[in-house]
């Protein structure tokens, strides 16, 4: 997960320990299974298949179904095959932009439409790769939350590096969540959110960027063009029923660039954008 994970539980001490164990084991299990940095797991097998079909287990199939649906719903903006673009884009704060030709070449290996997915068989074109980083963490939060909720009905908050899910009884003193202030002179004051039930996920523009001729290129790439999205907010936090939904909405908002707020407003969800 590459971030600190915690469980806050209002259950009794013994049960809380069980919840923590269940959450931790689930987090580690999902990380081992879906991380693109591990050799031998299903993602690695898919990414080294070199064009040959790969049969996947039901959980992986569910994730691929989800990714496919989101690819359709987002009009191609969300694409788990876009990871290979990191071969030409290194967001290290320098001014080294790739050329249109370099991007064009890699773009040939990007596109869910170039993959063939018929459950349970996935066939990628040679050179293509999948990266489940865009949904993995939020999915893990939701899975972990379900396990914790099954052990006790007392309020419980799962927090994987800022992606939160609150489960259990709703009639309690809500969890106090803060979105950090940004900028001097109260440009973006800190926000207090009372979370009684449900999820909060944040997509952010971290320290990864490129700067050339005074133009900042954020690390959020549009897989349809291979180039960075322009005008994205600094961070987007969305409240939704599950962390998967909140994460997807905040990710898509960032991908909408300057239209982030308009997009979220149209969805009728509670959101906080910082620019």
């Amino acid at each position, binding site marked *: 997960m590459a971030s600190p994970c915690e469980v806050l539980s209002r259950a009794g001490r013994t049960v809380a320990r069980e919840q923590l164990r269940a959450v931790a084991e689930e987090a580690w299990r999902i990380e081992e299974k879906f991380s693109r940095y591990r050799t031998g797991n299903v993602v690695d097998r898919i990414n080294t298949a070199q064009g040959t079909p790969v049969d996947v287990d039901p959980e992986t199939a*569910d*994730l691929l*179904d*989800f990714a496919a*649906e*989101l690819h*359709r*719903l*987002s*009009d*191609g*903006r969300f694409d788990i095959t876009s990871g290979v673009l990191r071969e030409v884009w290194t967001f290290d704060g320098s001014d080294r932009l790739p050329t249109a030709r370099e991007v064009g070449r890699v773009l040939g290996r990007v596109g869910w439409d170039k993959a063939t997915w018929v459950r349970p068989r996935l066939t990628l074109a040679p050179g293509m790769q999948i990266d489940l980083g865009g949904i993995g963490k939020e*999915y893990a939060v*939701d*899975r972990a939350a*379900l396990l914790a909720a099954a052990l006790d009905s007392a309020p419980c908050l799962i927090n994987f590096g800022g992606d939160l899910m609150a489960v259990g009884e*709703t009639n309690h003193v*809500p969890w*106090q969540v803060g979105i950090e202030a940004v*900028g*001097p*002179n*109260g*440009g*973006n*004051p800190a*926000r*207090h*959110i*009372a*979370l*009684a*039930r*449900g*999820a*909060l996920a944040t997509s952010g523009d971290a320290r990864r960027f490129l700067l050339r001729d005074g133009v900042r290129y954020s690390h959020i790439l549009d897989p*349809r*063009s291979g180039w960075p999205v322009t005008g994205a907010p600094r961070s987007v936090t969305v*409240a*939704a*029923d*599950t962390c*998967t*939904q909140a994460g*997807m*909405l905040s990710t*898509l908002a960032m991908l*909408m660039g300057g239209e982030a707020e308009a*997009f979220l407003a*149209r*969805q*009728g*969800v*509670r959101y*906080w954008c910082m620019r």
Partner: protein
Amino acid sequence: MGATDGGREPGSGQFVQRLAAATCSLLGIGSTVPVLAQEEPTWALDTSFLYYGESDERVQDLSLNVLARRLFADDKVLSFGLVYDSLTGASPSGAIPLNEVQTFTRPSGNDVYTVQPGELPLDDTFLDTRYALTATWQQPLGRLYTGSVGLSFSTEYDYTHAGLNFGITRDFNTRNTPLSLGAAIARDEIDPEGGAPLPLAPMGNIGDLSARRPGTEDKDVVDLLIGVTQVVNEHLLVQVNYSLSDSSGYLNDPYKILTVVDPATGEGIARVPAPGTAGPLHEYRFESRPDQRTKHSLFVQGKYYMGGKVLDVSWRYMTDDWEIDSHTLEAKLRWPLGDRGWVEPHLRFYTQTEAEFYRPSLPVGELPEFASADYRLAPFDAWTAGLKYGFRTASGNEAGIRLEYYRQDGSVPDGLLIGNQDGDALSPELDAVILTVSYGFDL
């Protein structure tokens, strides 16, 4: 590329429903429980209790200060301030110590008070309670501007203040160089006990209010400010402000007097109160200040972050048309202590030159247009040294305690001394202790 299908593009209402369905499928659940998340409607409350005490039975002040702020959606902020002040003790009246007993008529004209030889005359008339209220509304105006408007009001038994202020800030340079403009206007009403004394009128016997102006006096103040802040780098901020303040109307202190002295010896001029009544035993005159004052100030501040510690340094230069020049140098260093605490030593140095019409005493026969012996218009240096300790409680609230020592040291220029007057005895001196206890919490 980017062709869209009306019903499925991430802009239609169907998107959220389809996302929900896809999620339920993924997680193997039938439906989701609706989220319950809302922005806290918080009132952030800051409270502070102040004790201010001067040595030698001079002024003591106890005050309670409250600041309440509420943040609304869209970055709008409403804040209210309340101050309750209780002042006791005595303040120098402007008269100088003499080698004889002195008697003064109180400003009300109803009574006298006496001062021993060699003692600095203090007037304790203004035991007073003051209430002050402020209200401010701040909100963004478009993407780059923030505007604010505020009201201020205060009242004590002989003084009322009402004011209005505006501010606008524009962000330049992606919030790295905000520029601010501010304006404030105020109308103060002074209702001195017994009525405002006519300029340089002699202090009369009990019951004699002949040299007083009936009714109330007015004072108008206009303030203008322009300031720019510059973010230098991740750890350094600098602010520069220029401000102009123009006061007009009744600028006197109605209770301050000057001792009339013999031009050769510098001693007081004896006076006999009318028979059957009591009054001053020496000659005194009420002060007179111009009815106009224009001040210019230049203020520069820097904040520097050094791995957890924050250094705050500022300098203010003030000059006005009363010929007062002042410099204020201030430095604070905030030093983290453990997880939740911090200490902040504080040092302040202040120096001012005298007003053009300042004089410790008035030679008999001389009647200038303006004259005041108020020590606050005299030349002096002042030091403040203090330490503050603050910490965040387990529930996330802020508490603090601050102890400071303030010392004023003046030196009357030889040219203003008359006869055998001793500069040391006449020079302003003040020792005070400042203690504040503060607590901030959310409602």
